[in-house]
């Protein structure tokens, strides 16, 4: 086990990502293919980056490599200069569907990371309760995951990662399974937490509105094999209000993203069918 040096909240010197010519191969033998091709980017400490791309383009794969669950075939992937090799609580990950432990109540779910590090019960429960307040679930410590709504489950999931004070927060379509209203609330909550903690966030989404509302920067990926086709800086000032989504500058940027994502003739990706025949991202 390496470095457990704890950092104070709000300390933004750590969390810089450097990706340099990263290739990731998936599959075995004859079925092996490159899911991510020659991806390079840098994320300064404390930045909020969204990765936007069509389904199956390799977003989750890239995130898995940042988490240390998948090793790149080529290239360098570092966090604060240290190569990423294997998972570590410094790099927390949140998935689309919660991965809470149904046999533990909310408090013990959040205290899982500290428990794995051998922190005594009283102390890890204190830490869990502190984070519960931060995400606005103070009264739910004794509930079990199945007794919570989908939005609450995702909040607990985020809390379980934050209790480890990660330098990097990786999120794979974390709000993708929530209804529109809950999703908006979760987006604002996440921005609020991020403003206070200033961890670096890499956030994957299909949803252009979500990416533009949340991010400092949006990395747009091409269909499989995944490459980064554009690196968009989002100019909207913070704190952002939910209403900016309806304003003209937002609309212009959105149209630009839509053009980037729309499958071009001649590419071999199949457009997903939708009942209205509309392109999948034009919702």
């Amino acid at each position: 086990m390496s470095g457990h040096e704890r950092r104070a909240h709000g300390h933004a010197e750590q969390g810089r990502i450097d990706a340099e010519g990263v290739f990731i191969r998936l599959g075995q033998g004859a079925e092996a293919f490159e899911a991510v091709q020659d991806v390079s980017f840098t994320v300064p400490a404390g930045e909020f980056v969204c990765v936007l791309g069509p389904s199956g383009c390799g977003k989750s794969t890239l995130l898995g490599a940042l988490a240390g669950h998948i090793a790149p075939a080529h290239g360098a992937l570092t966090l604060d200069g240290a190569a990423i090799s294997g998972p570590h609580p410094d790099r927390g990950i949140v998935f689309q569907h919660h991965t809470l432990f149904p046999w533990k109540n909310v408090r013990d779910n959040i205290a899982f990371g500290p428990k794995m590090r051998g922190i005594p019960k009283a102390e890890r429960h204190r830490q869990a309760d502190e984070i519960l307040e931060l995400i606005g679930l103070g009264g739910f410590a004794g509930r079990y995951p199945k007794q919570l709504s989908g939005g609450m489950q995702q909040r607990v999931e985020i809390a379980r990662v934050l209790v480890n004070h990660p330098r990097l927060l990786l999120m794979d379509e974390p709000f993708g399974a929530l209804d529109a209203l809950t999703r908006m609330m979760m987006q604002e909550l996440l921005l609020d937490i991020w403003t206070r903690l200033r961890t670096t966030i890499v956030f994957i989404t299909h949803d252009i509105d979500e990416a533009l509302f949340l991010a400092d920067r949006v990395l747009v990926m091409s269909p499989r094999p995944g490459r980064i086709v554009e690196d968009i800086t989002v100019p909207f000032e913070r704190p952002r209000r939910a209403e900016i989504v309806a304003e003209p500058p937002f609309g212009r940027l959105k149209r630009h993203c839509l053009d980037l994502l729309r499958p071009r003739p001649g590419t071999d990706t199949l457009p997903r069918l939708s009942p209205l025949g509309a392109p999948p991202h034009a919702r």
Partner: protein
Amino acid sequence: MPSPRSHLALVLASPLMLLLAWDGATRFSLVEQILLPAPATIGAALWDVLTRGYAGVSVFVHIGTSLWRVLTAFLLAAFVGVSLGLLRGLYPRIDAVCLVPFELIRPIPPLAFIPLFILWFGIGEVSKVLIIFYYAMLVVMLNTQAGVASCPEDKIRAARSLGASPWQVFWRVVFPASLPHVVVGLRVALAAALSILVASELLGGDRGLGFVISDASTFFKTADVFVGIVLIGLIGLIADRALTFTARRIVHWEGKT
């Protein structure tokens, strides 16, 4: 959906009606007593067996012998089945080694093996315990393996990213996640163990509830056959309730809404 009160009334009325019909049939000699004794006759026989034993042996020795056989086999099967199931679920190589042998014997009904086991291990305790063990173990093993497989990959990844070592992932995540399946396996295995027990006792020996049934039928003591059946049914019911009660405490999160 009937109201809880009328639901209960219906639940209780049907066995009472059956009992009445049964009693009527014997009272008016619609069936011969030697084929189907009256409920009261069976009650008297039960009392007789409980107080004076069967074939010169206290009934509690018969019950104890049967329980000992089934519990020894069941506990061994639970231990070996859970261990093997976990290993097969965790290590593809071990699974590959186990696959063909276990898949070959799995579809064979355990009763088909009883004569063979008696041939190999004699008519004593060993063959009875082994036959129960072998089948209950298969059931527990397969369910445990399914339990391990039921733990989603993302959950394992999340735990790793929260700082759990591979051992901690197994002990704190995969194992508890498999428990609901393990419990199902144990319940099925227990029911199977009791039925195999009776079958194996029918085939030989002079102790046990299966022996009581087969011996009584040989001498046309039909009421005593029913006594044996009732006692086995009661044991099965109590064992399953006890197991379910314990399991609910262990997998307390199942079915929580």
